[in-house]
């Protein structure tokens, strides 16, 4: 009989009636490193946010050390001894290491002033225990990414965390730094802490975890001792669903190359990316989060400056210093970050759809907008894309995510581009909107549009693309074509189990 630290019973979570977690039963055993793996959107992060009080479950029960507990906010989790180290660091750059470690639970002298000496000494002690060489009075902004992570861990440990949850901690680390982190994790475990390690880097899970839980579509697929499962089996179970979504039939691309990228390199971000894109072709960029796919798009658009490399349109080299140059050269972008760089939520449907191509709706030297022309075009998009909105003047903040995404797509194709870079075109939209977006992109491609299709969802890469480049850490690991595009192949390349022909 093992000692169960934390158990969940039938935990479910839905966001506006879309289930992201279904009756999850997990047991976390004291003193283990438990791996939780799954594709993007499988529900890993949601589950962890529930355990750390960021979300409250729709139904179900959590038991901690045998007692039923309610974790309504992060403070509740903290009191229980559950600490989450988020993917994005939660440190204040301008403050010192010890300030950050004690943020919110500062030690004070009797007169009410901060007891800096005591905090510094305690931080030094903690850092010593973790065997990390960082000065307690160093400012966070002077630390490397790995060191920042150590400070996060130090912060978590300082409150005597019984359960430490790490969400994709190695995404930003180099191999050397990962080794340090793993040693630290093992030491923490041996000192009696319990750790949950969330990742989709399967090799790492295999290396560090004692047990592994595999999530898919909000369900637990299997729970295994790490010795009983191979990396390849993990990959298969992670993705192993049937292709149950209907993708439109692929048509054959034309021969004419419209875009050619040669040896594109941004130091430390992407390395030697080359490909050719033909008229009517849909070229997938697959890989895990942080593999550098969006960065490739941003470099082609001129948002990032390439150190070396050329971009050719119809065989002629073009200079693209900013997105305006890209649009002028017939290259359009559908952003993965809808509200951050895609649409203006405070603008109406009409004003959003025409934003990129506004010049073509204007007359005279002063560029007076021809409102009726602009409206007609927005109206056409709304009908063609089946955008559900009260009126064309409704601000986008009042539209659902799926409809916002369709407006974003309408905005990207309004300038009638030759090349469309669609970055996570179906992120955060429901199944029916997804299918409509697939249908639209496919239709545009059949009319000659060349498309770079970036997605973390394997099945849409497989369902939509003629060719797929799989990326890892800024490099192309291999190119798959036609029948060889399978979920397993993509996962092997993306996780670095196998290196293909780039």
């Amino acid at each position: 009989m093992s000692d169960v630290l934390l158990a969940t019973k039938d935990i479910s979570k839905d966001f506006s009636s879309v289930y992201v977690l279904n009756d999850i039963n997990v047991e976390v055993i004291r003193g283990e490193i438990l791996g939780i793996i799954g594709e993007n959107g499988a529900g890993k992060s949601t589950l962890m946010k529930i355990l750390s009080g960021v979300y409250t479950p729709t139904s179900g029960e959590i038991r901690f050390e045998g007692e039923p507990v309610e974790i309504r906010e992060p403070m509740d989790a903290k009191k229980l001894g559950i600490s989450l180290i988020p993917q994005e660091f939660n440190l204040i750059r301008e403050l010192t290491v010890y300030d950050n470690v004690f943020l919110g639970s500062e030690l004070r002298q009797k007169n009410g002033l901060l007891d800096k000496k005591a905090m510094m000494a305690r931080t030094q002690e903690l850092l010593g225990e973790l065997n990390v060489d960082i000065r307690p009075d160093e400012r966070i902004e002077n630390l490397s990414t790995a060191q920042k992570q150590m400070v996060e861990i130090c912060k978590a440990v300082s409150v005597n965390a019984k359960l430490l949850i790490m969400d994709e901690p190695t995404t930003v680390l180099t191999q050397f730094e990962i080794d340090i982190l793993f040693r630290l994790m093992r030491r923490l475990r041996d000192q009696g802490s319990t750790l949950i390690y969330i990742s989709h880097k399967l090799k790492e899970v295999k290396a560090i975890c004692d047990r592994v839980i595999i999530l898919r579509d909000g369900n637990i697929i299997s729970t295994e001792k790490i010795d009983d499962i191979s990396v390849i089996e993990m990959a298969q179970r992670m993705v192993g669903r049937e292709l149950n979504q209907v993708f439109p039939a692929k048509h054959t691309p034309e021969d004419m190359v419209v875009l050619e990228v040669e040896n594109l390199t941004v130091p430390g971000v992407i390395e030697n990316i080359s490909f050719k894109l033909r008229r009517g072709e849909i070229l997938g960029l697959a890989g895990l989060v942080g593999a550098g796919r969006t960065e490739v798009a941003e470099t082609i658009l001129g948002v990032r400056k390439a150190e070396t490399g050329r971009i050719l349109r119809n065989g002629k080299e073009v200079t693209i210093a900013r997105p305006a140059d890209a649009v002028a050269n017939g290259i359009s972008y559908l952003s993965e970050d809808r509200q951050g760089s895609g649409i203006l939520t405070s603008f109406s449907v009409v004003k959003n759809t025409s934003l990129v191509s506004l010049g073509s709706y204007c007359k005279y030297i002063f560029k007076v907008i021809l409102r009726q022309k602009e409206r007609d075009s927005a109206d056409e998009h709304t009908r063609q894309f089946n955008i559900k909105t009260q009126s064309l003047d409704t601000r986008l903040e009042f539209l659902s995510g799926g409809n916002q995404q369709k407006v974003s797509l309408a905005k990207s194709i309004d300038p009638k581009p030759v090349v469309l870079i669609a970055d996570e075109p179906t992120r955060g939209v429901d199944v029916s909107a997804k299918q409509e977006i697939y249908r639209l992109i496919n239709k545009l491609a059949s009319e000659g549009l060349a498309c770079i299709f970036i997605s973390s969802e394997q099945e849409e890469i497989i369902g939509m693309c003629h060719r797929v480049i799989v990326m890892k850490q800024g490099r192309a690991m291999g190119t798959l074509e036609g029948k060889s595009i399978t979920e397993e192949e993509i996962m092997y390349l993306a996780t670095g189990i196998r290196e293909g022909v780039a």
Partner: protein
Amino acid sequence: MTTADVRQVLKKFEYQKYASFIALVVLFVLSAFLSPFFLRPGNLVNIMSQVSYTGMISLGMALVIITGGIDLSVGSLVAFDSLIGVMFMNWFLKSTNHEVGAVLLGIACTLVVGSATGFLNGVTITRGKLAPFIVTLGTMAVFRSLALFIGNAGEIQSQSSIYGSFGLATILFLPVPVWAMLFLALVLDMVLNRTRYGRYLCAVGSNTRVAIFSAINVDRVKAIAYTITGLLVGISSVLLTSRFNAVSTSNTGMGYELDAIAAVIIGGTPMTGGRGTIWGTIIGAIILGIINNMLNMLGVSAYLQGTVKGLVIIGAVYIQRQRA
């Protein structure tokens, strides 16, 4: 109509759009009751001409604020532009003795200097990637200091015999500066609501990153907004110096930045940018003018007027925040 219906109608009513206008009407009625002199045409025209100088500057300020920026240098620039313009005119008059030519070139010089200094603000902000507040705080100090230095901290009289004529002239019962402000508002309202540039202004202020990805040249949009403000400062300077036929390096334009920003805010343009209103800004300027006028007529100390102005600005922003 039941009370519920009334409530429904009131709920749907766009306070945001008409809040400043309602405030103006309330203030107008209140003033009419408080002072018998308020409604006299002479007084009303007087209010309008008093607000016109900062009013036209506030139109440019509205554009700048829509982009998410601010321009603190407008007051100092009024002094600087006026000084350079008048000195140039005097020099030209002295060397050629050509009255009309001197006036026209003096005006042109003021407008060019105004646009150039505005452009300088814009380029420093966009090229240097610096906060507008910091840059214009700096240029505010620089141009006041330059004006004081060049003008020996004194007053420079215009030597022209005709320059002082149009600043006080009246066309169809209204002084020239009032017409100028209304005409500029008409033009800029068109620019803001009907042109591509106006749309870009709002897009840049609403979300710069989206604007960049939407193929908008964000730097150019911002730089143009500061340049337009500079040009409007130049126009205001011409009308001011013509009215007094002189420029005082220490007093001219003093505190104009406060009035201009206040007019924009009271008019209903949020400091966070992304949207704004030209006619609202005009209303904001008039509200400030009426408050000043009433305080004068009620015999409130001139020193206390700043207090009232300050409280009105804070109140206006507070109401905006409630609405949002």
